[in-house]
């Protein structure tokens, strides 16, 4: 499914950056297996598909039905992520679903790229497709497709990418149908076993660690204040409660993260810190209980805007959970902790990318320079591709010297990326760690903070971490990404 999706999709965001995932669920919507290409999708579909099935309250699917939604309060990420599912039949009965999620480069809303830095309600972040029949008998509904393409700035991408998702689902359904034809009911037996297996694996992992309560805090930055995230890990033998009580209330800014994002980022941190080989499906969530207070930024209520929850808040959830785990396990210092989302666009074009930074220093070695960390792992867009596709020119792409936090083992260095705008352009940046550098561990110093600016003919305008500005042709957007935190006290102190 993923290969079909990559090959048939249109936007560079999907085909080059692989901002997408595919999954298989059982008839109850429990996630059996997921191939995610970026960690922020890890397990998000286990929330998304369950929500969707509950929302639909129907059991009268037909073969070739495709249901689509991008409503974050259902799908579990943000409006740019279109989720589609299709039922798998065996002996006339729905035995499971295949699902596809992909990030559309533009989904409408107030700015190109849709991740509006200034949104105060979700309605400013783009079109909300409530769950709707996108296809019947694999035939896309022309009216639905028209509604979608009429509400976005890049209709060709939206059309191509949505058709690619349908092709991916179709491949998934046909492969699963082959399995059912070959093995019959043993397929669903095996699914049930695989849920039990992941549960047993997870319990074994948890019970190998010391029971106890471990707390940590971290912050996200708004223009005028910090927003606090708190977590307490309550590890009792082979069960773990992850409790985000104490986290600040939801805000009128897009850094609210729907609960699906909170679950994904927590799952990521646990898997990465405890055992990268941990297989993942719904069985993981049987001994791991994740709680975030309703109305907090980690479990907001409609109509809070959520576009950056997926990117920035997910990074901070990973940071804070990793920090709590560092109370009982050896871990690296904080990595850059942001995705440095850049959205550039004009009347008929939109470009989106995220930029890597430093990873945290480690007990045994320096952090890694210029790399995607934690919740994202998307590829960069090559300068030559950018220049051949958009009215942009990349003028600099280098490592940011001495930006990693000092320490016995320094943090990795961030990146400097400078892009010249060849036309008048709407520029949006959504980042973080501009006031508080990524933390060090065991005496290591924090990494350098991020720095964004717009260099015009005669001035350099410093940008906030979350801001939209109109820029004249000829200006240069300058992005300095954070370095990782250092590990251990620097040798000379």
């Amino acid at each position, binding site marked *: 499914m993923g290969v079909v999706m990559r090959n048939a999709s249109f936007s560079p965001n999907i085909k080059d950056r692989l901002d997408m995932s595919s999954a298989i669920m059982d008839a109850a919507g429990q996630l059996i297996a997921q191939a995610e290409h970026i960690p922020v999708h890890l397990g998000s579909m286990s929330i998304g598909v369950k929500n969707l099935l509950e929302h639909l309250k129907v059991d009268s699917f037909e073969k070739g039905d495709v249901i689509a939604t991008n409503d974050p309060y259902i799908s579990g990420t943000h409006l740019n992520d279109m989720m589609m599912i299709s039922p798998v039949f065996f002996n006339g009965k729905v035995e499971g679903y295949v699902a596809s999620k992909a990030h559309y480069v533009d989904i409408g809303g107030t700015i190109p790229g849709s991740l509006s830095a200034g949104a105060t309600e979700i309605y400013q972040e783009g079109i909300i497709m409530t769950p709707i029949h996108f296809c019947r008998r694999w035939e896309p509904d022309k009216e639905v497709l028209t509604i979608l393409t009429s509400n976005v700035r890049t209709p060709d991408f939206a059309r191509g990418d949505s*058709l690619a998702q349908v092709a991916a689902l179709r491949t998934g359904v046909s492969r699963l149908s082959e399995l059912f034809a070959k093995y019959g009911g043993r397929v669903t037996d095996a699914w049930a076993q695989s849920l039990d297996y992941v549960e047993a694996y997870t319990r074994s992992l948890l019970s190998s660690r010391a029971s106890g309560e471990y707390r940590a805090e971290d912050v996200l930055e708004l223009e005028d204040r910090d927003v606090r995230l708190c977590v307490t890990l309550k590890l009792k033998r082979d069960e773990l409660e992850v409790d985000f009580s104490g986290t600040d209330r939801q805000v009128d800014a897009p850094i609210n993260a729907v609960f699906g994002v909170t679950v994904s980022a927590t799952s990521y941190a646990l898997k990465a810190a405890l055992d990268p080989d941990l297989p993942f499906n719904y069985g993981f969530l049987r001994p791991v209980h994740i709680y975030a207070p309703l109305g907090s930024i980690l479990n907001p209520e409609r109509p809070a805007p959520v576009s950056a929850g997926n990117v920035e808040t997910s990074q901070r959830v990973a940071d804070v959970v990793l920090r709590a785990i560092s109370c009982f396990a050896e871990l690296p210092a904080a990595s850059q902790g942001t995705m440095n989302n850049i959205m550039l666009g004009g009347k008929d074009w939109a470009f989106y990318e995220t930029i*890597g930074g430093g*990873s945290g220093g480690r007990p045994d070695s320096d952090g890694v320079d*210029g*790399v*995607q960390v934690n919740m994202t792992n998307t*590829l960069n867009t090559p300068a030559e*591709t950018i220049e051949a596709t958009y009215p942009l*020119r990349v003028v600099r792409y280098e*490592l940011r010297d001495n930006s990693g936090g000092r320490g016995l083992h320094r943090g990795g260095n961030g990146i400097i990326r400078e892009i010249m705008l060849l036309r008048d352009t709407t520029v949006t940046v959504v980042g973080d760690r501009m006031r508080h550098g990524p933390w060090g561990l065991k005496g290591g110093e924090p990494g350098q903070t991020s720095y964004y600016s717009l260099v015009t003919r005669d001035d350099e305008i410093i940008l906030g971490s979350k801001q939209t500005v109109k820029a004249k042709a000829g200006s240069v957007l300058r992005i300095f990404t954070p370095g990782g935190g250092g590990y251990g006290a620097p040798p000379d102190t």
Partner: protein
Amino acid sequence: MVVGSAQLVVAVDVGGTFTDLIFWEGTGLKTVKVPTTPAAVEEGILRALELAGVSDCHLLHATTVATNAILTGNYPRVALLTTKGFRDVLEIGRQNRPEMYNLWFKKPPVLVPRERRVGIRERMSNTGEELAPLDELAVRQAAEALAGEVEGFAISFLNSHVNPAHELRAREIVAGLLPQQPLTLSSEVDRQGKEYERTSTAVINAILKPVMARYLAKLGKKISKVDVMQSNGGFITSAAAQSMPAAFIESGPAAGAIAVKSLCDKLGIPRAIGFDMGGTTAKASTVIDGKLSITNEYEVGGRASMGRMIRGSGYPVRFAFVDLAEVSSGGGTIIWRDRGGALRVGPRSAEAVPGPACYGKGGKEPTLTDANLVLNRLPTQLAGGLKLVRALALETLESLATGNKREAGSAKGGLPGAVEVALDAVSLATEEMARAIRIVTVERGLDPTEFTIVAYGGAGPLHVAGIMDSLGISKSIIPSYPGLFSALGLLLADYRHDFVLSSTPGKEHELFAELVSRGLDTIKKEGDFEDITVTKLADIRYKGQSFELTVPYVDADSVKAEFRRLYLEKYGYTIESNPVEIVNLRLSVTASRRTGDILDVEKTGALSASLEAQKPHPIEVRRVWFESGELSAPIFERKDLHAGVLLDGPLVVQSFDATVLVPPNFTLSVDRMLNLVLTH
């Protein structure tokens, strides 16, 4: 048309463990196997030649010397001149990390450290227009400053695939100052967009130039003519090899794929899967209508996961590579249980030391070889006299048994623990290998059931029946000498050069004319060929997509129609409203070397005196475990199986280099070339 016709032609495949030599000596094939000498590969080759009694020859050669230099980090220092502002492109790569969930991930060490990467002021636009002239003084200064420290320069400027003028001028300047320094231009080795991949290809090439030159010089002292197998499955001469060493990264596996292709040509098989299973890995390739499937990107030194290359785990090289999917399933692959209690096979291997537990060399973990021994599928003594100790294999596998009996009614209910584990482990490995085959078929829009498998490598013939079952494939072929099949491929391969150019709309015709004349010039320097084949291909996509399909090129219009047809076949829809664009033009030029009748058994005299099938006698009857239970199976020696023989499974065929397992419901026949043909 015959290259080096006056000389004895000898093929040598240098693998990780063994150096295999094979040649045609009037009446039959002669073979020699010696241990590889990793520190100085040429010594093993010369030793094999000595044992074969060959003094001088025309050497056809597959080598791992290029890959080894990168893997061991034992390579010369080079410098990189690149566009100012972009000197860290080589280090940042595509900014991803190779493992998503590993907090301790490392990137592969950068091939040229920052102090030897110099940003030069210059700039071309994406349309090839000069935005800033080349700072010639800076080029001169960089060359002079680094000359004493390096054994070569790579030059890679932004957008040089569109307009290479600055790279060409920079080369003139450096060559003028330092005539001895080998130089590599990115626009010459890989004329395509995406700066990281092109720069990486150029740097790899620059690094390998001195490595290859030294190696070929050493061989050249003893051997008068050496041709080297490229990753694309074709030879080039040693002179050409020195300017494009990045072409030899996957030299060895390419030879095996060529052998599959030649066998298919001979037998008239339209679609075949090459399945090569050895001690540590299994590889799958495809041949369709006489053509090897080729891919254009690879990461040298990279790791594969579930058959796919992990992006960012190695160094990208863009060149034509035989399209291979590789999984870590081999005889030495370790069987274990994870935390969740699931049985797992690989990716770790017991390697040569300590090897499988049954070798009695201190291996404590069971391997696939141990599983096969417990199932009584292997002889208890291997060629070379190594005894396999079944008790040791049993003991290690027993330790993984769960004690949980399967539910009643299951075929395996109540099995001895070690046998159940062994059967499960073999099925897991089979599924993993089937996955490699799916990658090169299903993921490329091909139906594997329309294919015939050619199984080779030491362990391929033992596992091929299970793979046929898993994929619904009805026929496979096990050639003579399955363990030396790659070396045999070398004797049969063509000469080949691949070229690529970014396309310009409306100029395809002229650009191809330029490519063809370049291609013919190049191959004519290799030798006096008559039968030269020129193949034109175009990478084509919908405008806006960045994934191309490669389509045979006739003219710009027909290629677009062919693209739409293929696209529909692959993805189930087309978008008529979107324009189609040609991205790259590709040309391959091949020329054959007369290979005589090497695969033609009738002419080689290898065929038995009588074509009448003589009923062979088994050397013994053994109880062998199959999926369906323990059965009595006759054991045959391969040399006793004459053409025309037809036998029903269950049975086992043994030979010095491989064991063939024929389960119940499978039939084994022997064709006129003495290939074993497995059907069900």
